[in-house]
């Protein structure tokens, strides 16, 4: 996974510390994600996955460490400039008023447009392409509030794509989706990452999704990276047992050769 030195990492973080009030949530996290890579952040509930994502996206202040986006310090971007480079999709998404699916996806063009400018044909083309990527074209006229949770999630992913970012940050992108859409969305993001040299960073509960779709995985526990590397390097029985405090079986999917992870024992009894 080495890139030419002339190409800066899409995201590079060094020794990040962050937290809420008195609690330290992240304690010295470092990572580097190359353009075109799919990078998964996994770990138990409360391990700091979402916090890490929010810090990298510039939505949460950190207490220490540095973050660089496309070779420039995060702080050197103003909000609009950052929105042209980084797109984020939160785990839960609200829409306060009635907007159509197309209107919502076109909101992704906002960082590229002035206050009064109407969306051009180029913007519409980009939005249409984003809709098509997530099988939403026939939904363009529908109101977002009328859609199911899974459909709505895809609308927000399409909005992020319409931003034409260099980096996409997804917080549990497949939380409300069925198996087919999980596979479809990851396949889509892998294609797009390769095609556009776009980096994809996603937090995932689902270890099998991380094993199957990520180029690199970071395993978090209590705000510390226990391991970072390829799925085979990181998602070992030993590492997972330590992090989840559970006996885990790691095998291979006989048809694809990808890792297959299953719990194999009960959690140890606590004192």
């Amino acid at each position, binding site marked *: 996974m080495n890139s030419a030195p002339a190409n800066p990492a899409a995201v590079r973080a060094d020794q990040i510390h962050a937290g809420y009030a008195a609690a330290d949530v992240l304690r010295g996290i470092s990572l580097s994600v190359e353009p075109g890579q799919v990078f998964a952040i996994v770990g138990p509930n409360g391990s700091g996955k979402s916090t890490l994502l929010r810090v990298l996206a*510039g939505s949460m202040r950190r207490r220490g460490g540095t973050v660089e986006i496309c070779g420039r310090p995060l702080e050197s971007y103003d*909000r609009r400039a950052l929105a042209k480079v980084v797109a984020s999709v939160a785990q839960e998404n609200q*829409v*306060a008023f009635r907007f159509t*699916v197309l*209107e919502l996806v076109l909101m992704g063009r906002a960082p*590229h447009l002035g206050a009064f400018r109407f969306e051009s*044909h180029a913007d*519409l083309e980009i939005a249409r392409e984003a809709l098509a990527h997530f099988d939403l074209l026939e939904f363009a006229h529908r109101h977002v509030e009328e859609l199911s949770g899974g459909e709505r999630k895809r609308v927000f992913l399409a909005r992020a794509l319409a931003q034409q970012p260099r980096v996409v940050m997804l917080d549990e992108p497949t939380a409300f989706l069925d198996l087919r859409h999980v596979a479809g969305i990851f396949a889509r993001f892998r294609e797009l990452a390769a095609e556009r040299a776009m980096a994809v960073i996603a937090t995932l509960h689902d270890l099998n999704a991380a094993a199957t779709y990520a180029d690199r995985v970071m395993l978090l526990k209590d705000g510390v990276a226990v391991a970072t590397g390829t799925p085979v390097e990181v998602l070992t029985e030993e590492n997972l047992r330590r992090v989840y405090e559970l006996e885990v079986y790691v095998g291979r999917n006989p048809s694809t050769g990808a890792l297959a992870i299953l719990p194999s024992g009960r959690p140890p009894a606590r004192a």
Partner: protein
Amino acid sequence: MIQSGGAPQISRVGAGFDDLAGAHLTRGRMLAIVSALAALTAAAALIATAFGSVHISLERALFDPASPDHVIFVAARLPRVMMGIAVGAVLASVGAALQALVRNPLAEGGILGISGGSAFGAILALVFASRIGAGQSVVPIFAFAAALLSTLAVYRIAQVDGQLEPFTLLLVGVIFNAFWGAAIMLVNSVVNLYYAHTILFWLMGSLEAPTWREVAVVSGLGAAGFAVLMSKARDLNLLSLGDETAAELGVEINALRRNIFIATSLMIGAAVSVSGIISFVGLIVPHVLRLAFGSDHRLLLPASLLGGAAFMVLADLAARVVIAPAEIPVGAITALCGGPFFIYMLRRQDRGALSL
């Protein structure tokens, strides 16, 4: 760099956008709707100028400067209709902006108690500023300052764990309204009778007997505030997605909030200083327009401006003629329409229309 617009885009192989037509706001659609609403407002203004408690002949009013018809037309009816246009336009567009800011379709200057605070400020200025030699011109300034303070207070108090709870916000509004009502009555009971009628006027909301100077004040300040709102229309759309997502789409949230607070307070202060507390216009008009034309604030704001003007002019016509020659305060008319409407919206909200 702006990637779109600029150089003419060479369309790809027959890339039409028929499949997307009507699913988003275009310049053509916006112009058509705004023109239609402008025509509607003009029609409402014409009707309201032609009718009143006294019958006048438009022909004499326009062409015979010596006739009483002319005097009634120029000195009474025309400024009153102009005032209705300005106040209605201000209240409805402020309502739309406040709703976007707090992400709550039930928010409105009157309901949130901002108009009440503003009226209290105006009354203080009226009663006490004259004693220290300051003229009437301080009234809009006090109304603005009080509106701004009320807005900030409502916004702060309604926040629970950094989130604006929809129902907490409305409750805070209820409490503020009761509080400001009591404060105004307190002032009323300590000042002499001379002010009592004026204070009642502020409490009820009325367009009675405006001067051209007042029309100019509310139009000028209203236009300035509205220009700020319009320049933030796209940001207000993004705000519907929540503060964090809006920020991730390039919105400077704190600066936006500050601008909207100041612009809406300026507008409410201007309206209240000339017409008192007129509630529910900012609730009814944007809601109906949102249902009809969608939520894009680039259209919703100007549509509310025009729709509010038309609504107010017609409500004021009703206020003038229903029990002529006596008058009903127009604030009573809007509240009589708005109360049931508010309850209807609240019930709809139970079914999830608010949060998603």
